[in-house]
């Protein structure tokens, strides 16, 4: 459908200093970070914790270069808001998906089989996840500094228990566990003064990513009450995804007969080469210079030169989750997200094809003002199915839960290639829907009467 959006109504006044730095911020490169889940026993403990946390949480976009920033972000599950004593009327005003939580939505978004919440890592999907703290930094020193106060706040507040912790850091290769550069694409959001990664993307309305501003439909996103709680907040779907790197390498090896073929097949499944160079701009071979260039590595559309997908297959991972102007059912601009992937666990050494039993993968944070229309839609329609691109039943070759029966179509001349009996390479270990309030809202949560 029509991908070129109207740019009318520019100059929307975003209160960026009231938005948590960790909400809309691109991930630094390199990066190190922590995710911490907390349970609060009662509302007084929760509010005391919040008051102590507040000085650690900054608003706005501190510097022009995101690689220089470190931040701590505070988010809450529905259970967490309840534990904090948020009035029922206010709790009821949150959107259904958030109130139900990700585990309750598992069948909808395809977290079934191995990825079923019954097999999730505790405390994911339980009532023991109330507060979700995250911190990201370009280096360990700044991370420690950013976390210092938050850590003290957690330790010194009775009735607050750390229920889960996860360290994330960029691998020495600078790539994901599967071996590809990530953190490339960032949407262009109107009124932020933060450039998007694709100069050809018309700015998206702020209301796609922040509560309190008009979105792409022209309406305000549904906002919880009271206004002070909702305004300048957003939602984050936080997921722990285990990656089966050995299975990925074995699959590629078994279905190719040379190193070059193997690299090409992997690129056709991902949509980029390991350096980050997109297939649409470099269809034949990797191009490290292109992959390293932030002004070029995401600066492309599909329709004009690659609508049929002979360069980047319509079913490739990056084209599914961000189809840009490609021919699809529906309007891609209604389903944009900020994606912030961070790696956990040790890398599987280069060349190793046998699983070493180590847990490795990513903590994915998917941010937007509309959980159902953005994260859940993308997962169900674009990752778990291919009807929108004319391949009904085909899942994302990388992120899909194939279970050994998956297929993927790769357009080629004279006829398409079709991968069959694809195994799953990714298993969901857990996930939570979180509300990431603005700073005024955090203060209101800490002292609703004040």
């Amino acid at each position, binding site marked *: *459908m029509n991908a070129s959006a109207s740019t009318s109504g520019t100059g929307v006044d975003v209160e960026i200093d009231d938005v948590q730095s960790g909400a809309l911020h691109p991930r630094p490169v390199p990066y190190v970070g922590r995710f911490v889940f907390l349970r609060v026993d009662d509302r007084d403990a929760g509010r005391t914790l919040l008051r102590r946390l507040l000085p650690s949480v900054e608003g706005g976009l501190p510097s022009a270069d995101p690689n220089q920033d470190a931040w701590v972000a505070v988010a809450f599950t529905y259970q967490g808001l309840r534990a904090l004593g948020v009035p029922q009327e206010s709790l009821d005003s949150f959107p*259904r998906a958030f109130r139900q939580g990700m585990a309750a939505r598992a*069948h*909808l978004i395809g977290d079934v089989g191995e990825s079923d919440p019954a097999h999730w890592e505790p405390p994911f999907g339980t009532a023991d996840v109330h507060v979700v703290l995250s911190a990201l930094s370009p280096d360990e020193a700044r991370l420690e500094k950013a976390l210092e106060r938050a850590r003290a706040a957690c330790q010194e507040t009775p009735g607050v228990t750390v229920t889960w912790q996860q360290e994330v850091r960029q691998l020495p290769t600078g790539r994901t566990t599967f071996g590809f550069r990530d953190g490339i694409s960032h949407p262009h959001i109107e009124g932020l003064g933060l450039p998007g990664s694709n100069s050809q993307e018309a700015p998206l309305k702020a209301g796609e990513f922040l509560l309190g501003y008009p979105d792409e*439909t022209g*309406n305000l996103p549904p906002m919880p009450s009271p206004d002070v709680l909702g305004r300048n907040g957003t939602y984050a779907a936080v997921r722990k995804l285990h990656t089966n790197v050995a299975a990925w390498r074995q699959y590629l090896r078994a279905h190719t007969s040379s190193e070059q073929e193997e690299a090409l097949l992997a690129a056709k499944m991902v949509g980029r080469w390991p350096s980050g160079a997109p297939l649409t701009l470099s269809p034949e071979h990797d191009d490290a210079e292109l992959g390293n260039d932030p002004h070029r590595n995401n600066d492309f559309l599909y329709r004009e030169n690659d609508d049929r997908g002979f360069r980047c297959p319509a079913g490739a991972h990056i084209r599914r989750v961000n189809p840009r102007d490609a021919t699809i*059912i529906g309007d891609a601009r209604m389903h944009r997200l900020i994606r912030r992937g961070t790696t956990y666990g040790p890398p599987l050494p280069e060349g190793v094809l046998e699983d070493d039993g180590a847990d490795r993968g990513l903590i994915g944070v998917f941010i937007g003002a509309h959980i159902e229309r953005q994260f859940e839609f993308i997962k169900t*329609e674009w990752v778990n199915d291919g*009807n929108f691109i004319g391949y*009904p039943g085909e899942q994302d070759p990388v992120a899909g839960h194939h279970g050994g029966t998956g297929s993927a179509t790769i357009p080629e001349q004279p006829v398409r290639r079709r991968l069959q009996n694809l195994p799953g390479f990714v298993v969901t270990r857990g996930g939570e829907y979180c509300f990431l309030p603005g700073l005024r809202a955090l203060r209101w949560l800490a002292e609703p009467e004040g």
Partner: protein
Amino acid sequence: MATTSDATSSDQPERPGMKDGVCSEFTVFTEIKPGHADALRRDLAMMADGSADKEARGALEQIGTLHDARHVMFDNDTRHMFASVFDGSWDTYIDDFGKTVIGERFDRVFSHTEGFPGITDPGVKDWFLAHQAPAGVFVSSYPDLTVQQIWKDQRVSEAFQAVLDTPEFRAALDNPANAELLASPAFRRLMEEAER
């Protein structure tokens, strides 16, 4: 890939309606505003008119998940029924279509019914749900086929029949170099299906 009808009816209370394979039914009953029956009839006639056919086809192509739909006025022009069959769920793309010609067509028709908030209104899904009556029985003769697949099947079938009509194809069949292909089970199945 298809979820079972059980999962749809029991686990998704927000999406009532019956499912058979990949598609589901969606039927809405509304009250026609007093004095609007003639205007609604005119709008429906205009949408059904041959001159609007191109727009209608274009709209269907744009939706890409609608198998069929009908608007019916009944009870002495006091009520209106919209009955449809969609791949997946009726509301999957409703936000996407709010700004398109499809949205305009919905707005035009439902503006004659009581309480319709407008297709781009955030409350429109709830309004449709409040007026939906789930079917007691819903069956499809092609439960595995989405609209996209049906369109593709038709295009491929027509193109393949055209190949069968060429003398070059005939010659290729007679060419001993192709004997191996002709003898393969996959190719024999193709020829068999083409005969039907």
